[in-house]
């Protein structure tokens, strides 16, 4: 960077020399320099982007047509074999149904976040306290959350103790059956992520000018009408963004189930399965095919959302 500066500083001298009669065309070196400058800023970011985002995608697609194990120098081209295996072996595709639990949970989560955002956008005592409490879980380390809830659902843990307090003695093993375990884990996911949705909704609601509420209040509009006609339109863009993030999030759940159950008792998700295929069973080819399928699904979902809700705010330049 130092040498660049000095070279640039020296430029006016050389430029002054040919300054004879007539308009001077910008010297070639200066023009070249100007053309190169943006690339000097972009070279590192682009190199990282290509190395860690695009090269993996290309590689992944290539691996997905082979039987590579990730280690040996040998690999055989197997055509669409991995994809066929993925779609015909039910146990490989079944994991997608687990996403259904998280998808249902995200409906609860969005509804809850909307409710609390609406409520806390009005004058409520201890508003900041409630806001902080609702948001804080989102900031907590995922492994810590996993442990907190392992203890919560444990036999004789927090949940059982609370239920006993209300006279409901139970020895239900919350993480014991696939259905109960998935519902519990999806509940943890709501606990963790509701705060983010809530804060985003709250921000959108508060960016609606206050006079609108005052006018509505004067006209005798009920809380429901205020929500329906002022709040709802104000948060539509953020709501659609949240929906799309929830869908792709439900499809790529990993942390909570991996930390808490390791994917046991029917809680294995698609990403857990892919990680296991790739790094435990050395089936890089098959895992790549699975990852390609997931990537395509997520891109498709995003594309559908962009088509349904054209959002002009997302423009970059």
């Amino acid at each position, binding site marked *: 960077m130092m040498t660049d500066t000095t070279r640039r500083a020296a430029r006016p001298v050389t430029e002054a020399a040919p300054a004879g009669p007539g308009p001077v065309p910008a010297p070639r070196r200066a023009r070249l320099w100007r053309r190169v400058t943006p690339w000097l800023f972009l070279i590192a970011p682009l190199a990282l982007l290509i190395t860690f985002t695009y090269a993996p995608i290309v590689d*992944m697609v290539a691996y997905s047509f082979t039987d590579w194990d990730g280690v040996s120098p040998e690999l055989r081209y197997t055509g669409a074999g991995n994809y066929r295996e993925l779609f015909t072996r039910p146990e490989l595709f079944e994991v997608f149904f687990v996403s259904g639990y998280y998808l249902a949970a995200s409906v609860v989560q969005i509804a809850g976040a909307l409710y609390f955002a609406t409520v806390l956008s009005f004058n409520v005592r201890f508003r900041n306290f409630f806001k902080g409490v609702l948001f804080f879980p989102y900031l907590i380390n995922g492994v810590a959350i996993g442990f907190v809830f392992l203890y919560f659902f444990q036999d004789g843990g927090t949940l059982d103790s609370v239920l006993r307090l209300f006279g409901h003695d139970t020895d239900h093993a919350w993480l014991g059956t696939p259905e109960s375990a998935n519902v519990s884990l999806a509940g943890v996911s709501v606990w963790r992520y509701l705060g983010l949705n809530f804060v985003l909704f709250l921000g959108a609601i508060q960016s609606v000018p206050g006079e609108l509420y005052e006018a509505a209040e004067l006209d005798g509009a009920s809380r429901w009408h205020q929500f329906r006609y002022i709040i709802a339109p104000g948060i539509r863009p953020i709501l659609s963004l949240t929906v799309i993030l929830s869908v792709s999030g439900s499809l790529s759940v990993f942390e909570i189930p991996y930390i808490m159950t390791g994917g046991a008792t029917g809680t294995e998700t698609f990403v857990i399965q892919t*990680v296991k295929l790739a790094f435990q069973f050395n089936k890089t080819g098959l895992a790549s095919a699975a990852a390609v399928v997931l990537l395509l699904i997520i891109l498709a979902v995003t594309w559908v959302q962009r088509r349904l809700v054209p959002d002009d705010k997302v423009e970059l330049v």
Partner: protein
Amino acid sequence: MTRRAASRVLVYLSLVLATLVVLLPLAVVFLTSLKTPKEMAEDSGALALPDDPFNLHNYVTAFQDGRMLSAFGNTAVILVAAIGGTVLIGSMTAYAIDRFTFRFKKLVVALFLVAALVPGVTTQVATFQIVNSFGMFDTLWAPIALYMGTDIVSIYIFLQFVRSIPISLDESARLEGANAFTIYRRIIFPLLKPAIATVVIVKGINVYNDFYIPFLYMPSEDLGVISTSLFRFKGPFGAHWETISAGTVLVILPTLAVFLLLQRFIYNGFMRGATK
């Protein structure tokens, strides 16, 4: 009027209930972290108070046997390097994209835009091979490079800010003989402070909490970060919930402190980060 009052009561009731749902699981873990193994064995129930509220013995165990100190050290190194890199990369990219016209600009912008849609978890199968081929596997470089190189959101945040800096500032500096690098260093970068604060906070919290990347790329115990070291509590401390709880509290405490100190910035940061 009574209906309004009734609905007010219901609103407060729901808020108190939500507060309990959020805080109770955390509070119980805190209580557990103060109990002795003997108390745990007696099984007086998860909600029982510890006999000695100042029993920090489990924290000592967690810190020493759980290798939390080296975990905090590794996390700190990764945090500093990854955040510094992200700030540099993001601000340079934003400056180049916003202040220059050049060939293939549309393509470059599209590359960054599309990359934002690709969820990182899906491509790790192949990213792993690339990281491995660079010899970065099982070194601190793997997470640093990945955190630095795949953060599109911070580029968005910087872009918004660069755009709000008037171009006339660049121009007057250029008239005084400043070149593009001087302008970036002396004018743009210092004016990006609010954006830098946002990126540091959001990125910092994300890196501190990330589990997937260190788990995948740094299996050695010496390279444990907060998440992976805590995860390893599962094995040796098996059913010793008092120790696991202490480790959990140790991990949550810094987050709580940062949250209480920087609340306003954190809300704004995550709002900007998510809405791009």
